[in-house]
């Protein structure tokens, strides 16, 4: 399953790129992040809580960065699992930043593979949950950057 | 927690266990069986206060104190219930994994409506699946079992 989206943040491309690598601030933008640990310059370990209606899944896994071309392109993969529901997620993502007038346009593509018992939820529910997650992320990102008095 | 099953009362452990688990694992009533686990196939049908339920998605705690009848509870002193007799005479089964479910649904149907029309029979029993495809004989058996 693929999720594509893009949004504009009125902050400079450098500032947006900088936030991407400021792990404590970035992790605040991702809804449901419990903990993030930097393993090395390319790998981070974290826990993510995802809620779908009454069901709360706790994915713990590793984000591995692949391409890092400051300040415009970043890509990598995520592998994590939720032991309780015998489910796991494997995703690859790529994001690009481009200066648009005073702001920055962020576009990203995520190829998501949900496996195990949660996969029975079916396409629409997974897609909607993923879209909601990315929408919240975008909103939080914007909030972090736009209100920051630089 | 007390369960009243086929006239006998049993002290059992409730909690998050389904009625299906308790009937099989605690009471050894093996006629009720899981086929799909999501209430679609009817192999786990039991009667609770006369109404048919899927015991695979009913907590045992929810059936406490109610009158539960399983396939083992239909026979009266050794002879078959009329519905069981009708199923036998019409060969209304093949592997018969689903038969206890169909028999109990038929008992419940005829209790609600002693002489249902053909399409009422089909609609009432359509929630029971038979992968061997014995449906024609099953509908004939139910027609034979209904009061003329």
């Amino acid at each position: 399953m693929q999720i594509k989206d893009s949004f504009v943040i009125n902050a400079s491309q450098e500032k947006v790129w900088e936030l991407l690598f400021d792990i404590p601030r970035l992790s605040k933008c991702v809804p449901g992040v419990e903990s993030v640990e930097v393993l090395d310059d390319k790998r981070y370990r974290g826990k993510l809580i995802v809620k779908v209606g009454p069901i709360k899944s706790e994915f713990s896994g590793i984000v591995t960065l692949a391409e890092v071309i400051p300040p415009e392109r970043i890509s990598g993969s995520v592998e994590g699992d939720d032991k309780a529901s015998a489910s796991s997620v494997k995703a690859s993502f790529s994001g690009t930043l481009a200066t648009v007038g005073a702001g920055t346009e962020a576009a990203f593509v995520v190829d998501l593979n949900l496996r195990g018992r949660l996969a029975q939820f079916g396409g629409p529910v997974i897609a909607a949950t993923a879209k909601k997650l990315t929408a919240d992320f975008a909103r939080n990102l914007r909030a972090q950057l736009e209100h920051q008095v630089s | 927690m007390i369960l009243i099953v086929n006239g006998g009362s049993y002290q059992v452990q409730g909690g998050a266990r389904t009625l299906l688990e308790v009937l099989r694992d605690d009471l050894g009533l093996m006629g009720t069986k899981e086929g799909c686990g999501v209430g679609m196939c009817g192999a786990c049908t039991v009667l609770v206060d006369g109404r048919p339920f899927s015991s695979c998605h009913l907590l045992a705690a929810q059936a406490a104190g109610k009158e539960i009848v399983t396939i083992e509870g239909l026979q009266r002193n050794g002879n078959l219930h009329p519905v069981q007799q009708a199923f036998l005479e019409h060969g209304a089964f093949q592997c018969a994994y689903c038969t206890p479910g169909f028999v109990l649904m038929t008992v419940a149907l005829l209790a609600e409506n002693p002489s249902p029309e053909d399409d009422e029979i089909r609609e009432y029993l359509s929630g029971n699946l038979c992968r061997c495809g014995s449906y024609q004989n099953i509908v004939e058996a139910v027609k034979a079992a209904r009061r003329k």
Partner: protein
Amino acid sequence: MSIKFLEPSDFPEAAASLAEHGDEAKIIAGGVSVTLMLQQKLIAPPVLVSLGRIAGGDSIRQSSDGLHIGALAKLRNLEQSSVVQEWCPALAHAFRVVGNVRVRNQATIGGNLSAADYAADPPAMLIALGASAQVFGPDGKREVPLGEFFLGFYTTALRPTEILTGIIVPPLPTSARASYHKFSSISAEGRPCLAVGAVADFDADGRCRDLQIAIGAAVETPQRVDTAEAMARGESLTDELIAAIAEEYAQALDPLTDVRGSAWYRREMIRVFVGRVLKEVRDGNR
């Protein structure tokens, strides 16, 4: 897995238990979806608050201000209730087509609505009838129109400490006609690919005074389309107008794709079944 099974005797006591145990506690009414999620280890709440023992929680009664249905009413009872049948046969039909007899003996209308499963039958018909949900929580009662009750997949407007206690269906003018249609695209026993609930009121010479159509199962939450309903008010439902209204529904909504049908197919089916339901209410044979 040990689990505490509470059986409060009324809604306030139930709400209090919810507040006390926070998100450790889960409401269980009929228990169909809760038990399935327990069995599949998708949830593991230490406390279950069962509403089974609440007296009068399943009442079905008619009064001047509408049809009052207790949240604990079983779908099977609603399907067979003469009160519901007289009030609106289409509503009785919407209950009768849910799952199979066994599910309907166990599932309650409150459970069905709180689960907010997108492939459900009753929500579309209740929204078309303008029903609203009665909710009880720590800060008392409130009413939520069902059109605003469903927020997303398996997500409702209920706050964590609130309980759905009943449904109110406003009175229907005698001149009104209703129709519900479940379309199963694959097998007869399948969940709906599309659910269409419609209520239309006609004046003496057959012009449509009011129209509410809700589409369910094909979209994330059951929805009405104001622009399409507006096209019918004051008009007589000619075949051409019916086709235009159906087209408006098909274009306005964003159908989803699952094993029961693609978004393309569901858009086609919305057009077909809105048309058929409108003809049924116009020709009054339902």
